[in-house]
């Protein structure tokens, strides 16, 4: 009897785990499909700026940050300095600091291995679906977070690979306007996140200043505009309550 119980418990656990993995992958799949054009663009642009196919794939395998990769490729294309590549990477990635701070209480007691894996697979999309799970079930599941993250990772790397191959055969693939998919994705992420007056102000400030800075040809437009947006949000936060 004693032998049977743990076995049957294990089987239910296995089924539950399998369900959890299935749920996580299906939850993130639509978001993963939406970034396929972006992955293709990253792959083909890497080839265009002179990286070897292997180097292009290594970026997606190790860095796994679409926005930072794309910005760095643009800088590499204009032979930007290492320092400006790394500083823009930091600014673009700094939003992950917040995600990691939000997950801290849920993962701080997990093993080093689990914490490292969750950190590595932590993206905007994984954060979004894991937060939704957290809200529904009132508990954090590292299996759910990791399954979502790994699904996203696989799709991202496959689409980079497609871009690398296509970039070698189809000239000017970056003129197709694949970057529009990025704009649409970001709009779909940002708009629903505007729930406060101050967030609206930070988005407006960041958008208007990036236009002005880009038109006047000032360097580091992205970094400066982001900082202006953050400062505006922070400074208008006191108005939030008055505006509901």
């Amino acid at each position, binding site marked *: 009897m004693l032998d049977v119980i743990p076995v049957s418990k294990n089987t239910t656990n296995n089924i539950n785990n399998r369900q959890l993995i299935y749920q996580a992958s299906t939850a993130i799949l639509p978001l993963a499909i939406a970034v396929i054009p972006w992955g293709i663009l990253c792959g083909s642009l890497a080839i265009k700026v002179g990286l070897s196919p292997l180097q292009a794939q290594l970026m997606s395998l190790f860095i796994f940050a679409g926005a930072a990769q794309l910005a760095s490729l643009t800088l590499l294309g204009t032979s930007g300095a290492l320092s400006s590549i790394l500083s823009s990477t930091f600014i673009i990635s700094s939003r992950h*600091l917040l995600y990691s701070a939000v997950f801290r209480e849920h993962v701080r007691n997990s093993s080093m291995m689990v914490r490292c894996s969750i950190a590595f697979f932590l993206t905007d999309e994984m954060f979004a679906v894991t937060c939704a799970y957290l809200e529904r079930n009132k508990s954090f599941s590292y299996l759910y977070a990791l399954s979502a993250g790994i699904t996203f990772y696989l799709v991202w790397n496959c689409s980079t690979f497609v871009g690398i191959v296509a970039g070698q055969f189809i000239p000017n693939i970056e003129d197709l306007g694949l970057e529009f998919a990025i704009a649409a994705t970001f709009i*779909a992420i*940002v708009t629903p996140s505007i729930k406060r007056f101050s967030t609206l102000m930070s988005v407006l400030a960041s958008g208007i200043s990036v236009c002005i800075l880009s038109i006047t040809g000032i360097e580091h437009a992205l970094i400066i505009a982001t900082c202006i947006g953050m400062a505006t949000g922070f400074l208008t936060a006191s108005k939030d309550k008055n505006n509901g």
Partner: protein
Amino acid sequence: MDNFGLVLLGMSCITFACRFLFFYKKLPFELGEKTKLALSYTAPSVLTAMWVPIVFLSYQHIEQSFFTSPFLIAGLLSILLSLKFKSTLLIVMVSMTLFITLQLTY
């Protein structure tokens, strides 16, 4: 690309460090409320600073006027859709379809 190794290593370390920092057990500091508040504006600000130039400034690269640019028209459609629908995939697919259609007709 001579310093590609450095770029790859540096970028990998920075992205991983940002994602891992608060998973570190013996962190010598906790985030104050003000820092958390400031950080909560990072995602909307940085994402906006990236999509706005694509939608509003891409016309400069494609020999289209500002108002007839597929980037602008399809971008405005995705903004409208995002006010009404929550599905990222739906928004991307519908506005991408309009974008491609416009590009083909011009």
